[in-house]
Structures are given as C-alpha cells and as structure tokens.
C-alpha cells in the first residue's frame, strides 16, 4: 500500500525533486548498485524523472549524469517524460492477442483517442503498450496504474475507464 500513499502524495503536494532524491538515496544507499531502486522510487513519487532529479541522483552517487540518464532511458518502468495521472498498460503479447486482445486495443484507442505512448491533453491518461504483464491466465489483460484487469471483453473498457477520476 506504500504505492497508494505515494500516489496520494503525488497528487496533493508538488514534491521537490531534490528532497525526493535525498530520501531515496538515504533509503537505498549511495552505491552504484542502488541506482535502479533509487530511480524507481523517485519515478514513482514524482510520476516521472525530471532532469533536475536525474542530476541530483548523479551528484549523490558520484556517477556521470550520462550514465544515470542511460539507465533511466533503458527500463520501461522508468520514464523521463511526464505521464498522465493514470497510466494504462495494455499487453500486446501473443497469449493476450490470441484471446481477442486486438479488439480490446481498438476499443481503448477509440475511447481515449490516443496513440501508444501518448498522454491526453487534459493530463488524465497515458496509454502504453506493454510486453507480457505476467497474468497470462486471464488474457486479454490491461493494467491501470496498479490495478490489474483480466479477461477484459471490449465492451467492458468504458466501465473500467469510468472508475478513474
């Protein structure tokens, strides 16, 4: 539930990237090994990794900022671009595809009017395609923030989206 609290913090208080990075470094240590856990936490609290945060991580860990940026750019769960309040991940791997994923994807795009990777103008939604999300027993699968929806028929899409404000 720590992520829920982080979510709430993200929405109510405009967090200071410096302070967030400092707290993460204190928790995970200032070794090279800790860079991914630190970036993951900062990204979760701030919603993404702004340049200021990356610079701060580079200073705390005494790592060239190019290396911090190259790690941040590599992993799917780390984003260097701002994301919407809610992030939708849609699984486009074969098991979900075979179970009718294509129709769900079409419906999602229709409802949101977004291309993969885009964020809506009002900052509410970011739509991402994902490789396997690890819940293949119940395809097609989509994940909104941390909530997993399995065996989703296309007609359930609007109802799921309506749960989020």
């Amino acid at each position, binding site marked *: 539930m720590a992520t829920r609290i982080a979510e709430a913090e993200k929405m109510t208080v405009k967090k200071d990237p410096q302070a967030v990075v400092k707290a993460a470094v204190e928790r995970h240590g200032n070794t090279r*090994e800790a860079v991914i856990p630190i970036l*993951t936490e900062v990204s979760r609290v701030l919603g993404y990794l702004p340049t200021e945060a990356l610079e701060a991580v580079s200073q705390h860990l005494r790592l060239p900022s190019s290396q911090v940026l190259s790690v941040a750019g590599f992993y799917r769960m780390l984003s260097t671009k701002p994301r919407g309040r809610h992030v939708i991940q849609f699984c486009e791997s*074969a098991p979900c595809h075979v179970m009718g994923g294509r129709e769900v994807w079409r419906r999602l795009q229709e409802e949101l009017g977004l291309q993969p990777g885009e964020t809506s103008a009002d900052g509410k939604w970011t739509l991402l395609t994902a490789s396997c999300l690890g819940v293949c027993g119940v395809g097609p699968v989509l994940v909104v923030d941390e909530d997993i929806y399995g065996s989703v028929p296309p007609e359930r899409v609007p109802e799921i989206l309506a749960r989020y404000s």
Partner: protein
Amino acid sequence: MKPIRSMVLVSSDADSMQRGAQEVFQRLQQEIAAFGLEDEVAVAMVGDVGRHDAVPLVIVYPEAVLYGPVRPEDVHFLVEEHLLKGRIAAGLQAPTRELSGRIAWLSARKGTLPAEQRIVLARAGLIDPEDIADYIAHDGYEALGKALTTMKPSEVVEEITKSGLRGRGGAGFPTGTKWRFVAQAKSDTKYIICNADESEPGTFKDRVILEGDPHSIIEAMTLAGYAVGAHEGYIYVRGEYALAQARLRTAIQQAKEMGFLGEDIFGSGFRFDIHIHTGAGAYICGEETALIESIEGKRGEPRPRPPFPTTYGLWGQPTVVNNVETLANVPPIIRNGASWYRRFGTSSSPGTKVYTVLGRVNVTGLIEVPMGITLREVIAIYGKGMKGGAAFKLAQTGGSSGSIIPASLQDTPMDFDSYARAGVSLGSGALLICDEETCVVDLAKVLLNFFRGESCGKCSPCRIGTERAYRILNNISEGIGKLSDLDDLLLLADGLYQLSNCGLGQTAATPIRDILRHFRAEVEAHIRLKVCPAGACPMSGRLAMAA
C-alpha cells in the same frame, strides 16, 4: 502443530482486495475464533485464484467448495454452516462456470487428474506463504538441515548431478554441472543468483512458486550456497511482481529470525544472506549476463559469453544463476535423494515440468506434469479439449526460447531431447494453444513486434534484423507482400541466429523459420492469392489497390 481439519483460502488479487477481501479475511479469523475453531481451521490469503467474476472468493478445503462473492456480513453464516455444522452454506456458493486457472489445479489434488505429479508446486496454494511455521510443518528446511549436518558440500553437488536436474529457464543445462563449475572456481567470493525476472509472454509459473511457496526458494539458494561455497545470494524479481516481492521479503525476515539465514546456520558454521533486487521493466534482463549487469546498476545489456557467469559473474566473481523453478526442485531432491527424483519424467529429462496452458482450450491454467507427456494429452486431459470443439492448429511454447509446434508434432514426448530431435524447443513452459482462427503470419508478426520492442539495441543484427522482419511480416499481413520477401525473411533469420550477441536475437528467428517450415502454403496464400485463410490479417493494402 495440531492437525488442521479445514483450510479456508481467501482470494487476494487486486480485484478481490478492492472488493473487501481484507475485511472478509479478518471477519473469518474473528468468527472462527468466536466458534472456538481456531485450532482446527486455518485461514490464509492466496493471491490470484484465476477467477474474477465473483470476487472475493472463499474456498474451503478439503471439500473444495467455492463461495463468492463473499461480503463481510456473510462470514458469520458461512463459518457456522460449513465449518461448525459441516454443511454447505446455501446461497453463498459462486455461480458455476467452467473453472479456469489455478482452481483447475487446486481441484486436481482430489484425484481428477491422475497424471499430475507435484514436486515444485507441492505446497503452493496449500500453505500460508507468509507463515514459516506452515512451511516447516510441510517438510520445510528439512533438506537444509540434512545437508548442513550430514553432507559435505561436494556431496550436495554430487546428489544434484546424479538427479539429472536440468535448468527450467528454457535452455535445459544440467544444474549439477553448473554448480560444479562454480564449486571448483578458485575465489573467496562467489554468488548465487535466483533468476525471477520471468518475462516470457505466457509464462507465470515462477510467480506462482514465489507467491505460494517463497521459503522453498530461500532454502534452495542456501543449499546452493553451501554446495558451491557462496555466502551471498540475490533474487532478481521482475518489477511487476509486487506481491512476490513482498512475500519474499517476509520470508527472508522470518528465515533470519529462525536462524535459517545469517551466521552459523544449524550450528554448522556456514553463513548465508539473501538480497532482493527488483527489475524495472526490461525483458532482456532475463538473460543471465544482462541480469547481472542490471544488479550492478547498469543498463541491462548482455555481456559477450564466454566468459560465462560460472567464472566471471556478479562483480567479476564466479556466480550460479538458476531459474526459480530449477531451484524449487533442489530441496525435494536433497531431502528424498537423486534416485527418488529419477522416478519421475524420462531418463534424459528427469522430474516434472510446470506449464501454463493458455489459449483456445476449455480450461486454462497451471499444471505440473512429468517430463515426456505429449501435447495431445495436455490438451485433452488438462485443457479439457479445444474451445467449441475447434481443431487444434498449433501451439506456441512461450517466449524467445520457444517454437511453433504444428499439429503433426502433438504426439512427440515433451522433454528436452525428444523436442530437440524434432527441431523444436520446449521454451520456458508456456503452451499457447491455437485453433484455426489463428493466422501464422499474424502470430509471427505479434512475436516479432515483441522482439523488436525488447531488443536492447546493443548489437545491430538483432536491433535491425527484428525491425526488418517485423516490417516484412506486416506487409504480408496487409496483402502487399512479394514472394521474394520469403527469401529475405529466411536470410534475416539466418543473420539473426548466427550474428546476434545473445539468446534474444538468436531465437527471434525461430517463429520465422517455424512458419515457413510448417505453414508455408498459408503464408504464400497471403502473397499469391491476397487472402488470409484464417481471416485474421487486415489485408487493407489489397483493398486499397482494388479501390
């Protein structure tokens, strides 16, 4: 522990939690205590039970009665009727439906699926994964005690070698041999890594082991550490597996408190410690050298091999990297002996294999069966036949290390060597069963789309090859392919296989070769006749030309 008469399981996936599973769980505990049943009835949260239409679900064993959706106010009646009076609580049962997912294998314990053998999943779903006492009561840490007090490290390696255990991550390398390499390496510092970055599409067997029986991995890693002379272990869990991470943390904490981790384990003088490293979303980190780079805090780009991790692994030290399922086999082997283990499976591939059965079958879910079972048996016995009585067309064995298996191979025994002789591979344990509605071009396109997205980009044969192959397949599916495209695809497949740095690029060629070998006519129909026989491809280029 006192004998437990009944086991009550509450589903605790995200959906269930949202709908009050936690409160139902607490009320169950209160009511069971109120009726004075706490000594004979155990309650546990079990994660995702594979069914979401009536959550939260409450399952009562040994009768395997399924209640749902259960509201907190229903709990008093349920406990009084079922657990006190011993009859089914009328009106609370979940609507009947073809069971799916884990319910299918839970009910298998009642003897409906006689061929299923459980070694790896023996405890998953039956014990409380957050209670070390429950694990100990079910033979837990017995193997560790036996090894540390009665066996030399070399004897542990010897026992694993004799058992014939082979890596379950996809490659099938003999585990005992790997351990021996590291045991013989001359270094003061060695590491054990558990590869729990399960990201092969369609595979979630490791998640179920980690969520259902986390202590078995802790015990296995400690055994491995003792065998090869390592004192530190890392579990690399994929970032998406939040529940597995939490349960592993709890398990490590409990093991430390009980003295199964830390200094002087079982008074043997042996010390071992385990850290958890969580991934951040990169399929390539399942490759062992990329995984090591990621633990070191770098981009997950594979290293050239050799040197292999057994000589140059984490921070340049000799390292054992084993998959979750492989490790889960270790404690039972040490506890019962290699000859016991060899009773299961085939002579060259002993033991069991956990498969995730997915796709167009009536029952999907997780099964653990002896090596050497056939695809036809899996579909008929465990999948309960094809959905709607459709014809079986092909199976995709999951992720980058898998193959597309045509119907003509459905009677080939599923073990490492029989499949290798037939020119296909077992993969990581996913069995995606497809019927005539699946188009091979469309399937290969989806697979190549996955590879082009997950290629780390370090080496150009893979980075460019997967992209080119995807575009050609896309053209074919749009009805604008040329016959020469097929030669280009095979050329790309050769390049990918021979020139890529790691397994991702090398196996990205597999779907291309498989569809052209087994389904060439269907692919050519897209090009010569501008028709998708399965009716799955858009073929919009053809329509555009006609208009």
